[in-house]
């Protein structure tokens, strides 16, 4: 059973539809007791980092998320909130992965980075099984995570940034697998397979 975190900044319908297409069981919840019972977490997110953090704090989800040992897949803003802080609203985030989110330099190219882009694998990981550098994924974001030792894959737009990140039980993807066609479905299936085999 997957628990999708319910909060203000979630693209909840997109993620739950994608899980429906994969015939996965899930709940959408902001209730800590319910979330304690699931096998893994999907932490979606679109919108503004500071507003999202406020909403998580008001539900005590920030502390719970940071301390959970369940596999967590953060998507887009969800992934970004794993980091320590963001230039967006100059806010503190969850602090699971070291680093600070930066804004793309809009004097160099259009911001947001919106559309289909490839990624470049840096380290092997079961979440990326079958996904290759030639594949395209759908991105929409104005802020990015710089590369670090936790980067599994990078994407190149204005500069190379972290497309996929991993630390302990936390996996984050900057793109939207739920909107990235067959390749995105494959990544979500990889996550489900990882959860089922653990």
């Amino acid at each position, binding site marked *: 059973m997957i628990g999708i975190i319910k909060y203000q900044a979630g693209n909840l319908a997109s993620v739950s539809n994608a899980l429906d297409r994969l015939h996965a069981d899930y709940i959408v919840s902001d209730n800590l007791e319910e979330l304690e019972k699931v096998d893994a977490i999907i932490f979606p997110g679109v919108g503004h980092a500071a507003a999202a953090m406020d909403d998580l704090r008001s539900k005590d989800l920030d502390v719970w998320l940071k301390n959970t040992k369940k596999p967590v897949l953060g998507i887009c803003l969800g992934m970004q909130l794993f980091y320590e802080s963001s230039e967006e609203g100059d806010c503190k985030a969850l602090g699971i992965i070291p680093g600070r989110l930066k804004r793309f330099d809009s004097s160099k190219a259009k911001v947001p980075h919106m*559309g289909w882009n490839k990624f470049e694998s840096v380290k092997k990981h079961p979440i990326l099984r079958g996904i290759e550098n030639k594949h395209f994924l759908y991105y929409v974001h104005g802020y990015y995570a710089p590369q670090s030792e936790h980067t599994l894959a990078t994407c190149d737009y204005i500069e190379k940034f972290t497309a996929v990140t991993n630390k302990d039980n936390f996996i984050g993807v900057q793109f939207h697998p739920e909107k990235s066609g067959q390749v995105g479905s494959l990544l979500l299936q990889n996550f489900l397979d990882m959860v089922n085999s653990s």
Partner: protein
Amino acid sequence: MLTRRIIPCLDIKNGRTVKGVNFVGLRDAGDPVELAQRYTEEGADELVFLDITATKEKRKTLVKLVKDIALHINIPFTVGGGIKSVEEIEEILKAGADKVSLNSAIVRDSNLITRASDEFGFQAIVAAVDAKRRANRHSWEVFVKGGSEPTGLDALDWMEKTEQLGAGEILLTSMDRDGTKSGFDLELLKAANNRLSIPVIASGGAGTIQHCCDAVLIGNADAVLAASIFHFREIEISDLKAKMAEEGISVRIINN
């Protein structure tokens, strides 16, 4: 490298697609979900659904349709047509749309852009601008209500303002070219892209593959939108993308 996007547009009336050829293999050419799935399989990068129904009951039908589309389509899609308030935007986004396009409503109340952008994120807010060349030929005026009402607004100034107010993308339709199949208004596209730092979707005038290439190579459009050339299968999305790639345009080729 970020690819340029190809976006088929589906006109929706009472929950059904308007016009369009009977695709081989489609049971029902009027079913937006089936057509959308077909476009997705053929390599569309995004889809736009424009509701042209003018009745009060339309919202319910539209929301139901958006839910149905979201369940079946695994690429991003935008919904537009008569959306007027934060509540209506929320309803459409919660039903599963990724973006809404706003047109007449933001001309009446430009702060709607900011309210919506703050609430749902700028990536979800598309400013749709219908622009018509002025008699002096070197500027364009914004029209609303399906192109029937002039506003007196300069299109380039207006687009810049929507960006400042929080729009994440511009859907720019040349009224002079719309429906003519004589090519995009490249001068308008170039001027818009020089002014703006958010993505611009070129719309109005697509008739040939070369027109679409020109929109990117000359107009510097981030995305190309078309309706009838895809509906009537005059151009296959896969052929269009193959040709664009030959011309050196970065596009997403699937089937790999």
